């Protein structure tokens, strides 16, 4: 701690002949020894003392009460250190430590309100208490103008560690500015009434009052979260917040009731004493009392209304979900239990239900909406998957990359893919068919692959060739192509490609 050692040194410096003085401060050894330590600062203080004679030092050393600073009587500059040292010898410390470099910042610890005083103290090295006392005194002397300056400093000086001040955020806060403007007009009306009631001293407070009120509104709306939390913790002891404990609320209620009674009393007494000042004070107390008593209650009603609406929305959502699960999943489960003997049908039911549930949970399509016309290629692929799985009882693993609108070309391509998938389901003997669809800038490709028995394309009898040929013919007419690769025992893959027409490509993938 710098201040301890520093203060001790100054004490010693202030008492060069301290043997006869009342012992003061933590400097016992030096008093008996009579020799001040000879480090730089105290040496200077002592020499200044010696040159100026004993009068002042005698007074300081006797330590009777808080004598006023005697700096003006000192012949040279060393006196400044001298009077502050003597103040400190009475327990009033002016400095806390060395001044810190860097720009002025509002302190984020050791603050009382906005941290302006603590910030100044940190910047200059002066004591925080001194600065606070100065601010209060000057605020009173300047009829509030320094208070206004304080609020402005709060707005415009960034907090420690922050790179933006509150004002830069406040200028974008339209509701906050609206509130401030509203508050200003209310205050102006109140001040006009007050001055009409022949209380001219009120109008001299007008500008600082309005600026402070508006500034505090903007601060309370735009200060960073941790600062707001601190301010809330300040308001808590007065029971101003809705979450305050019961005893605090009792305190708040008591204060509010007291203000109300005082206000009513002032109103009743209005005619006799200080005729025009009392009603004004009465109204202010009355309004303050009502706010304290009823404000949190109103606030609670408002927040409860919001919570109630949210709970209702949640309940509706749950009811909706329950009815959908009932219509789909529960029905299917009941069906599966009844037909547990028919393995094939159970598999089909489970698969169809799974697909529907997936579409609902992950793609956001409600159950039952799967039927109907496909509008994009991806929709069409899903329809093929659904149809083949439910009619042929094998799994279709469909993967779609990209998507585009379904025009005539794409419908032909989808029809060909459906044909190939159904063919695989009928003839391959595999239990899974992979269907991969990729929509690219200039073309759409579809691949239908199974791991079934396969066949030798060269050895296909003419009556079964027709299917492949018709698919191929349909695609080539539109500029597409179809390739079939297969070998006995290795499964089959049908590749279908269709170029995209130029006007479709503009929006690209969705």
């Amino acid at each position, binding site marked *: 701690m710098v201040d301890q050692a520093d203060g001790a040194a100054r004490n010693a410096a202030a008492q060069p002949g301290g043997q006869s003085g009342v012992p003061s401060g933590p400097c016992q050894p030096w008093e008996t020894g009579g020799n001040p330590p000879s480090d730089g600062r105290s040496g200077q203080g002592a020499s200044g003392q010696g040159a100026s004679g004993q009068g002042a030092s005698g007074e300081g050393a006797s330590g009777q009460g808080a004598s006023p600073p005697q700096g003006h009587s000192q012949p040279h500059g060393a006196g400044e250190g001298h009077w502050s040292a003597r103040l400190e010898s009475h327990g009033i410390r002016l400095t806390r430590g060395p001044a810190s470099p860097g720009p002025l910042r509002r302190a984020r610890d050791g603050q009382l309100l906005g941290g302006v005083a603590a910030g100044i103290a940190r910047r200059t090295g002066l004591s925080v208490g001194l600065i606070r006392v100065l601010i209060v005194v000057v605020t009173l002397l300047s009829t509030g103008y320094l208070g206004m300056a304080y609020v402005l400093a709060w707005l415009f000086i960034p907090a420690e560690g922050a790179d933006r001040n509150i004002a830069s955020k406040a200028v974008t806060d339209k509701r906050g500015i609206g509130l401030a403007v509203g508050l200003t007009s209310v205050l102006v009306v109140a001040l006009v009434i007050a001055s009409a009631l022949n209380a001219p001293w009120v109008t001299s407070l007008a500008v600082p009052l309005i600026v402070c009120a508006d500034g505090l509104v903007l601060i309370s709306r735009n200060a960073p979260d941790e600062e707001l939390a601190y301010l809330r913790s300040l308001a808590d002891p007065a029971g101003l917040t809705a979450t305050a404990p019961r005893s605090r609320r009792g305190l708040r209620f008591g204060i509010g009731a007291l203000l109300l009674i005082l206000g009513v009393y002032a109103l009743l007494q209005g005619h006799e004493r200080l005729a025009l000042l009392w009603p004004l004070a009465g109204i202010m107390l009355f309004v303050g009392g009502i706010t304290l008593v009823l404000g949190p209650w109103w606030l609670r009603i408002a927040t409860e209304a919001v919570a109630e609406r949210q709970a209702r929305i949640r309940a509706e959502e749950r009811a909706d979900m329950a009815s959908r699960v009932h219509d789909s999943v529960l029905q299917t489960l009941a069906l599966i239990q009844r037909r547990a003997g028919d393995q094939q049908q159970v598999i089909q039911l489970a698969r169809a239900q799974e697909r529907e549930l*997936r579409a609902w*949970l*992950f*793609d*956001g399509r409600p159950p039952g909406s799967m039927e109907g016309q496909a509008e994009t290629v991806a929709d069409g692929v899903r329809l093929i998957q659904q149809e083949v799985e439910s009619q042929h009882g094998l*799994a279709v*693993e469909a*993967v*779609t*990359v*990209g998507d585009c609108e379904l025009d005539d070309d794409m419908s032909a391509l989808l029809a060909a893919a459906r044909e190939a998938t159904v063919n695989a389901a009928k003839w391959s003997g595999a239990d*899974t068919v*992979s269907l*991969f669809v*990729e929509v*690219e*800038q200039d073309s759409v490709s579809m*691949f239908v*692959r199974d*791991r079934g028995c396969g066949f030798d394309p060269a050895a296909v009898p003419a009556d079964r060739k027709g299917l492949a040929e018709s698919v191929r013919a349909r695609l080539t007419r539109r500029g597409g192509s179809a390739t079939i690769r297969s070998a006995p025992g290795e499964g089959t*893959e049908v590749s279908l490609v269709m170029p995209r027409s130029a006007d479709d490509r503009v929006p*690209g*993938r*969705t």
Partner: protein
Amino acid sequence: MSKPRVFLVDDHSMFRAGVRSELAGAVDIVGEAADVSPAITQIAQSVPEVVLLDVHLPGGGGQDVVAAIRAEHPDVKFLALSASDAPEDVIAVIRAGARGYVTKTISGTELIDAINRVAAGDAVFSPRLAGFVLDAFAAGHSADLGRPSFDPELDQLTGREREVLRLIARGYTYREVAKELFISVKTVESHVSSVLRKLQLSTRHQLTRWAAERKLT
């Protein structure tokens, strides 16, 4: 090859029992858990080679388990096994550090194959995951192509990687992919691992945005 030591994380006890019976004999199941925090403590104790991880857990996402374990046990590998097809779930768990993603409809033999592959340090791409990656990295998709890329190397797939992914999406096994492209299986594996790395490290905003868009449409 010795049997890989496997840990099972899934909140459905029926599903865990099913997986256990399917894997019996092929792997050594060292433990199982039903939620995030017991999974983290038990995995840290048993230090398995592979964790089979459900993406959705009551106490959070599977990615929380991956993140917590990887800090202390980087050798533990994760294979996401989930009923969820939601792209954001898949992308989230892969980006947290899982070595692969398969759906719960996978057959027993394929699952054992995938576990061995992950245990050996390779990546496992199901056709669906391959499709997701192709979609997410698709060039035509990027509205922010003009944005300066943080690391262009990580933000796009090479032509060869794209080819490999397409074949996987078409249902090809790694061996079939290798045969089709006249490369070795090891090369296929290194392409897939490289894609996985890009998926995990790419700073592309698109990955997240793409996943969010897929959810909405």
